[in-house]
Protein backbone atom coordinates (compact mmCIF):
# COMPACT_ATOMS: atom_id res chain seq x y z
CA UNK A 1 0.00 0.00 0.00
CA UNK A 2 1.26 3.43 -0.87
CA UNK A 3 -0.03 6.09 1.47
CA UNK A 4 0.54 9.80 1.41
CA UNK A 5 1.98 12.42 3.73
CA UNK A 6 0.72 15.88 2.81
CA UNK A 7 3.04 18.82 2.19
CA UNK A 8 2.13 20.18 5.66
CA UNK A 9 3.36 16.96 7.27
CA UNK A 10 -0.13 15.64 8.05
CA UNK A 11 -1.15 12.17 6.92
CA UNK A 12 -3.76 12.17 4.15
CA UNK A 13 -7.25 11.69 5.58
CA UNK A 14 -8.32 9.17 3.00
CA UNK A 15 -5.22 7.07 3.67
CA UNK A 16 -5.99 7.15 7.38
CA UNK A 17 -9.55 6.05 6.75
CA UNK A 18 -8.41 3.21 4.50
CA UNK A 19 -5.86 2.12 7.12
CA UNK A 20 -8.53 2.11 9.83
CA UNK A 21 -10.88 0.04 7.67
CA UNK A 22 -8.18 -2.47 6.83
CA UNK A 23 -7.29 -2.87 10.49
CA UNK A 24 -10.92 -3.23 11.60
CA UNK A 25 -11.48 -5.94 9.01
CA UNK A 26 -8.27 -7.74 10.01
CA UNK A 27 -6.74 -7.18 6.58
CA UNK A 28 -3.88 -4.96 7.66
CA UNK A 29 -1.48 -7.85 8.29
CA UNK A 30 -2.10 -9.13 4.78
CA UNK A 31 -0.23 -6.18 3.27
CA UNK A 32 3.41 -6.97 2.51
CA UNK A 33 4.62 -3.40 2.76
CA UNK A 34 3.43 0.10 3.58
CA UNK A 35 5.23 2.74 1.58
CA UNK A 36 5.10 6.50 2.09
CA UNK A 37 4.56 9.02 -0.67
CA UNK A 38 5.77 12.26 0.87
CA UNK A 39 4.58 15.31 -1.03
CA UNK A 40 7.65 17.19 0.16
CA UNK A 41 10.02 14.56 -1.09
CA UNK A 42 9.72 13.54 -4.73
CA UNK A 43 12.41 10.95 -4.03
CA UNK A 44 10.36 9.18 -1.35
CA UNK A 45 9.65 5.59 -2.34
CA UNK A 46 5.91 6.13 -2.66
CA UNK A 47 6.33 9.19 -4.89
CA UNK A 48 8.72 7.28 -7.12
CA UNK A 49 6.32 4.37 -7.36
CA UNK A 50 3.46 6.75 -8.15
CA UNK A 51 5.55 8.29 -10.87
CA UNK A 52 6.68 5.01 -12.36
CA UNK A 53 3.11 3.68 -12.56
CA UNK A 54 1.69 7.09 -13.49
CA UNK A 55 -0.69 7.11 -10.55
CA UNK A 56 -2.07 10.41 -9.33
CA UNK A 57 -4.17 9.36 -6.36
CA UNK A 58 -3.47 7.99 -2.91
CA UNK A 59 -3.70 5.58 -1.38
CA UNK A 60 -3.09 2.93 -3.99
CA UNK A 61 -2.17 -0.73 -3.91
CA UNK A 62 0.41 -2.61 -5.94
CA UNK A 63 -0.45 -6.27 -6.32
CA UNK A 64 2.01 -8.74 -7.78
CA UNK A 65 0.73 -12.10 -8.85
CA UNK A 66 2.96 -14.58 -10.69
CA UNK A 67 5.06 -11.79 -12.10
CA UNK A 68 2.08 -9.71 -13.21
CA UNK A 69 1.65 -6.34 -11.55
CA UNK A 70 -1.73 -4.74 -11.11
CA UNK A 71 -2.42 -1.36 -9.54
CA UNK A 72 -5.59 -0.68 -7.60
CA UNK A 73 -6.53 2.92 -7.00
CA UNK A 74 -10.05 1.98 -5.89
CA UNK A 75 -9.89 0.76 -2.32
CA UNK A 76 -13.11 -1.25 -2.23
CA UNK A 77 -12.35 -2.86 -5.58
CA UNK A 78 -9.05 -3.95 -4.06
CA UNK A 79 -10.85 -5.29 -0.99
CA UNK A 80 -13.38 -7.17 -3.13
CA UNK A 81 -11.05 -8.58 -5.73
CA UNK A 82 -7.76 -9.11 -3.95
CA UNK A 83 -8.76 -9.63 -0.33
CA UNK A 84 -11.93 -11.44 -1.47
CA UNK A 85 -14.00 -9.49 1.03
CA UNK A 86 -17.44 -8.67 -0.37
CA UNK A 87 -18.90 -7.31 2.85
CA UNK A 88 -18.55 -3.73 1.69
CA UNK A 89 -20.41 -4.10 -1.59
CA UNK A 90 -22.48 -0.93 -1.32
CA UNK A 91 -19.42 1.12 -0.48
CA UNK A 92 -17.64 -0.42 -3.44
CA UNK A 93 -20.53 0.68 -5.65
CA UNK A 94 -20.35 4.20 -4.25
CA UNK A 95 -16.62 4.33 -4.86
CA UNK A 96 -17.22 3.14 -8.40
CA UNK A 97 -19.63 5.92 -9.24
CA UNK A 98 -17.51 8.58 -7.53
CA UNK A 99 -14.52 7.60 -9.62
CA UNK A 100 -16.23 7.06 -12.96
CA UNK A 101 -18.10 10.11 -14.13
CA UNK A 102 -19.11 7.98 -17.13
CA UNK A 103 -21.58 6.26 -14.85
CA UNK A 104 -23.38 9.52 -14.13
CA UNK A 105 -25.83 9.21 -16.96
CA UNK A 106 -26.90 5.60 -16.65
Amino acid at each position, binding site marked *: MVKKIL*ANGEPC*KKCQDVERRLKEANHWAKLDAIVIANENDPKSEG*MELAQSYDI*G*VAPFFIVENEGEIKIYTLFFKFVNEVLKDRSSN*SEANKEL*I*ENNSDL*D*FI
Partner: protein
Amino acid sequence: MKPRKTTGRRSPQQVLRDAISHHPAGRIAISFSGAEDVVLIDMAAQQGLSVDVFTLDTGRLHTETYKFLEEVRKHYDINIEVLMPDPKEVRELVTKKGLYSFYQDGHSECCAVRKIGPLKSKLESLDAWITGQRKDQSVTRINLAQTQEDQSFSTDDHTIVKYNPLSDWSLTEVWGYIRENNVPYNKLHDKGFVSIGCEPCTRAITPDQHERAGRWWWEEQTQKECGLHAQNVVKIVG
Protein backbone atom coordinates in the same frame (compact mmCIF):
# COMPACT_ATOMS: atom_id res chain seq x y z
CA MET B 1 -14.78 -12.22 -24.67
CA LYS B 2 -12.55 -9.29 -25.64
CA PRO B 3 -13.82 -6.47 -27.86
CA ARG B 4 -13.17 -7.23 -31.50
CA LYS B 5 -10.55 -5.00 -33.12
CA THR B 6 -12.07 -2.73 -35.72
CA THR B 7 -10.66 -0.06 -37.97
CA GLY B 8 -12.24 3.28 -38.79
CA ARG B 9 -15.49 4.80 -37.62
CA ARG B 10 -18.64 2.84 -38.13
CA SER B 11 -22.26 3.93 -38.26
CA PRO B 12 -24.31 3.31 -35.09
CA GLN B 13 -26.28 0.69 -36.98
CA GLN B 14 -23.12 -1.13 -37.93
CA VAL B 15 -21.73 -1.02 -34.39
CA LEU B 16 -25.01 -2.42 -33.13
CA ARG B 17 -25.08 -5.17 -35.77
CA ASP B 18 -21.46 -6.16 -35.14
CA ALA B 19 -21.98 -6.18 -31.38
CA ILE B 20 -25.07 -8.35 -31.48
CA SER B 21 -23.53 -10.80 -33.93
CA HIS B 22 -20.32 -11.01 -31.92
CA HIS B 23 -21.88 -12.33 -28.71
CA PRO B 24 -24.18 -15.28 -28.10
CA ALA B 25 -27.85 -14.44 -27.50
CA GLY B 26 -28.48 -13.76 -23.85
CA ARG B 27 -24.90 -12.62 -23.23
CA ILE B 28 -25.39 -9.09 -24.59
CA ALA B 29 -28.14 -6.57 -23.91
CA ILE B 30 -29.17 -2.98 -24.55
CA SER B 31 -29.34 -0.78 -21.47
CA PHE B 32 -32.33 1.47 -22.05
CA SER B 33 -32.71 4.53 -19.84
CA GLY B 34 -36.19 5.47 -20.97
CA ALA B 35 -34.97 8.53 -22.86
CA GLU B 36 -33.56 9.28 -26.31
CA ASP B 37 -31.49 6.09 -26.28
CA VAL B 38 -34.68 4.52 -27.61
CA VAL B 39 -33.00 4.96 -30.99
CA LEU B 40 -30.89 1.88 -30.20
CA ILE B 41 -34.03 -0.21 -29.87
CA ASP B 42 -35.38 1.25 -33.09
CA MET B 43 -32.13 0.59 -34.96
CA ALA B 44 -32.13 -3.02 -33.77
CA ALA B 45 -35.76 -3.44 -34.83
CA GLN B 46 -35.20 -1.85 -38.23
CA GLN B 47 -32.34 -4.26 -38.90
CA GLY B 48 -34.33 -7.27 -37.70
CA LEU B 49 -31.87 -7.83 -34.85
CA SER B 50 -33.04 -9.62 -31.76
CA VAL B 51 -31.38 -8.50 -28.54
CA ASP B 52 -32.31 -8.38 -24.87
CA VAL B 53 -33.20 -5.01 -23.37
CA PHE B 54 -33.05 -4.03 -19.73
CA THR B 55 -33.78 -0.86 -17.82
CA LEU B 56 -33.00 0.32 -14.32
CA ASP B 57 -36.08 1.18 -12.32
CA THR B 58 -34.63 3.16 -9.46
CA GLY B 59 -38.07 3.61 -7.92
CA ARG B 60 -37.72 7.37 -8.46
CA LEU B 61 -38.50 7.73 -12.16
CA HIS B 62 -41.07 10.16 -13.57
CA THR B 63 -44.54 8.84 -14.37
CA GLU B 64 -43.85 9.89 -17.98
CA THR B 65 -40.83 7.58 -18.05
CA TYR B 66 -42.80 4.59 -16.77
CA LYS B 67 -45.45 5.30 -19.42
CA PHE B 68 -42.76 5.58 -22.06
CA LEU B 69 -41.19 2.26 -21.09
CA GLU B 70 -44.60 0.68 -21.54
CA GLU B 71 -45.12 2.43 -24.88
CA VAL B 72 -41.75 1.15 -26.14
CA ARG B 73 -42.50 -2.37 -24.95
CA LYS B 74 -45.76 -2.40 -26.91
CA HIS B 75 -44.56 -0.48 -29.96
CA TYR B 76 -41.65 -2.82 -30.63
CA ASP B 77 -43.32 -5.89 -29.17
CA ILE B 78 -40.31 -6.61 -26.99
CA ASN B 79 -39.69 -7.66 -23.44
CA ILE B 80 -37.93 -5.11 -21.28
CA GLU B 81 -36.31 -6.56 -18.21
CA VAL B 82 -36.86 -4.13 -15.35
CA LEU B 83 -34.01 -4.22 -12.84
CA MET B 84 -34.68 -3.03 -9.33
CA PRO B 85 -32.42 -2.18 -6.41
CA ASP B 86 -31.92 -4.47 -3.45
CA PRO B 87 -34.86 -3.59 -1.14
CA LYS B 88 -32.72 -4.12 1.95
CA GLU B 89 -30.15 -1.58 0.77
CA VAL B 90 -32.86 0.93 -0.16
CA ARG B 91 -34.55 0.44 3.20
CA GLU B 92 -31.30 0.98 5.07
CA LEU B 93 -30.51 4.12 3.09
CA VAL B 94 -33.90 5.81 3.41
CA THR B 95 -34.38 4.78 7.04
CA LYS B 96 -31.04 6.27 7.98
CA LYS B 97 -30.92 9.26 5.68
CA GLY B 98 -34.43 9.89 4.40
CA LEU B 99 -35.80 10.01 0.89
CA TYR B 100 -33.85 13.02 -0.35
CA SER B 101 -30.37 12.45 1.08
CA PHE B 102 -28.80 13.22 -2.31
CA TYR B 103 -29.60 16.93 -1.91
CA GLN B 104 -27.29 17.06 1.13
CA ASP B 105 -24.83 14.24 0.58
CA GLY B 106 -24.53 14.18 -3.20
CA HIS B 107 -26.00 11.61 -5.53
CA SER B 108 -23.36 8.91 -5.40
CA GLU B 109 -24.67 7.03 -2.37
CA CYS B 110 -28.25 6.81 -3.64
CA CYS B 111 -27.14 6.06 -7.22
CA ALA B 112 -24.84 3.33 -5.89
CA VAL B 113 -27.80 1.63 -4.25
CA ARG B 114 -30.47 2.27 -6.85
CA LYS B 115 -28.43 2.03 -10.05
CA ILE B 116 -24.95 0.56 -9.67
CA GLY B 117 -25.97 -2.38 -7.47
CA PRO B 118 -28.60 -3.77 -9.85
CA LEU B 119 -26.53 -2.92 -12.92
CA LYS B 120 -23.49 -4.72 -11.53
CA SER B 121 -25.57 -7.81 -10.73
CA LYS B 122 -27.02 -7.80 -14.23
CA LEU B 123 -23.63 -7.41 -15.88
CA GLU B 124 -22.35 -10.45 -14.02
CA SER B 125 -24.62 -12.47 -16.30
CA LEU B 126 -23.52 -10.73 -19.50
CA ASP B 127 -20.37 -10.46 -21.62
CA ALA B 128 -21.35 -7.15 -23.15
CA TRP B 129 -23.80 -4.31 -22.88
CA ILE B 130 -24.89 -1.61 -25.27
CA THR B 131 -25.42 1.93 -24.07
CA GLY B 132 -26.70 5.17 -25.56
CA GLN B 133 -23.73 7.15 -24.22
CA ARG B 134 -22.39 9.92 -26.42
CA LYS B 135 -19.24 12.04 -26.39
CA ASP B 136 -21.21 15.26 -26.39
CA GLN B 137 -23.06 14.45 -23.16
CA SER B 138 -20.23 15.59 -20.94
CA VAL B 139 -16.62 16.74 -20.99
CA THR B 140 -15.77 13.48 -19.24
CA ARG B 141 -16.94 11.56 -22.28
CA ILE B 142 -14.91 13.20 -25.03
CA ASN B 143 -12.83 10.05 -25.45
CA LEU B 144 -15.76 7.68 -25.44
CA ALA B 145 -15.08 4.86 -27.89
CA GLN B 146 -17.65 2.98 -29.94
CA THR B 147 -16.34 -0.25 -28.43
CA GLN B 148 -14.39 -0.55 -25.21
CA GLU B 149 -13.51 -2.96 -22.48
CA ASP B 150 -15.61 -1.85 -19.53
CA GLN B 151 -13.04 -0.96 -16.89
CA SER B 152 -15.70 -0.25 -14.28
CA PHE B 153 -17.36 -3.64 -14.27
CA SER B 154 -14.80 -6.08 -15.66
CA THR B 155 -13.02 -8.19 -13.10
CA ASP B 156 -9.91 -10.35 -13.23
CA ASP B 157 -11.91 -13.32 -14.46
CA HIS B 158 -14.76 -11.69 -16.33
CA THR B 159 -14.22 -9.16 -19.09
CA ILE B 160 -17.23 -7.06 -20.01
CA VAL B 161 -17.36 -5.17 -23.27
CA LYS B 162 -19.28 -1.93 -23.57
CA TYR B 163 -20.63 -0.81 -26.93
CA ASN B 164 -21.55 2.83 -27.41
CA PRO B 165 -22.97 2.94 -30.94
CA LEU B 166 -24.05 6.57 -30.59
CA SER B 167 -20.72 7.81 -29.24
CA ASP B 168 -19.99 9.97 -32.29
CA TRP B 169 -23.49 11.30 -32.73
CA SER B 170 -24.57 14.68 -31.47
CA LEU B 171 -27.82 15.24 -29.64
CA THR B 172 -29.11 16.91 -32.82
CA GLU B 173 -28.36 13.82 -34.87
CA VAL B 174 -30.15 11.62 -32.34
CA TRP B 175 -33.22 13.85 -32.57
CA GLY B 176 -32.95 13.93 -36.36
CA TYR B 177 -33.17 10.14 -36.32
CA ILE B 178 -36.11 10.14 -33.90
CA ARG B 179 -38.10 12.59 -36.07
CA GLU B 180 -37.20 11.01 -39.39
CA ASN B 181 -38.14 7.53 -38.24
CA ASN B 182 -41.16 8.45 -36.13
CA VAL B 183 -39.58 6.87 -33.10
CA PRO B 184 -41.68 7.13 -29.93
CA TYR B 185 -40.08 9.37 -27.32
CA ASN B 186 -40.47 10.29 -23.67
CA LYS B 187 -43.03 13.12 -23.35
CA LEU B 188 -40.78 14.89 -20.85
CA HIS B 189 -38.73 15.99 -23.84
CA ASP B 190 -41.67 18.18 -24.90
CA LYS B 191 -41.47 19.92 -21.51
CA GLY B 192 -37.86 21.01 -21.85
CA PHE B 193 -36.17 17.95 -20.37
CA VAL B 194 -33.11 16.95 -22.37
CA SER B 195 -31.22 14.42 -20.26
CA ILE B 196 -33.71 12.33 -18.32
CA GLY B 197 -32.97 10.47 -15.10
CA CYS B 198 -34.76 10.19 -11.78
CA GLU B 199 -37.54 12.66 -10.99
CA PRO B 200 -35.89 14.41 -8.00
CA CYS B 201 -32.56 14.74 -9.83
CA THR B 202 -33.67 15.89 -13.28
CA ARG B 203 -35.03 19.24 -14.39
CA ALA B 204 -35.95 21.01 -17.59
CA ILE B 205 -33.30 23.31 -19.06
CA THR B 206 -33.27 26.31 -21.34
CA PRO B 207 -31.99 26.00 -24.93
CA ASP B 208 -28.70 27.73 -24.08
CA GLN B 209 -27.85 25.27 -21.30
CA HIS B 210 -25.85 22.07 -21.69
CA GLU B 211 -27.84 18.91 -20.99
CA ARG B 212 -25.63 18.21 -17.98
CA ALA B 213 -27.24 21.26 -16.33
CA GLY B 214 -30.46 19.28 -16.09
CA ARG B 215 -28.96 16.68 -13.76
CA TRP B 216 -27.81 17.07 -10.11
CA TRP B 217 -27.65 20.84 -10.63
CA TRP B 218 -27.15 21.51 -6.92
CA GLU B 219 -23.78 19.77 -6.84
CA GLU B 220 -20.52 21.62 -7.23
CA GLN B 221 -17.68 20.17 -9.18
CA THR B 222 -15.52 19.59 -6.15
CA GLN B 223 -11.82 19.02 -6.12
CA LYS B 224 -10.90 15.57 -4.92
CA GLU B 225 -8.54 15.79 -2.00
CA CYS B 226 -6.61 12.57 -2.54
CA GLY B 227 -4.34 13.63 -5.40
CA LEU B 228 -0.61 13.45 -4.94
CA HIS B 229 0.08 17.13 -5.31
CA ALA B 230 3.80 17.36 -6.04
CA GLN B 231 3.90 19.10 -9.41
CA ASN B 232 5.81 17.42 -12.25
CA VAL B 233 6.04 14.22 -10.28
CA VAL B 234 2.78 12.52 -11.08
CA LYS B 235 -0.30 13.51 -12.97
CA ILE B 236 -3.00 14.91 -10.71
CA VAL B 237 -6.37 13.25 -11.04
CA GLY B 238 -9.65 14.86 -10.06
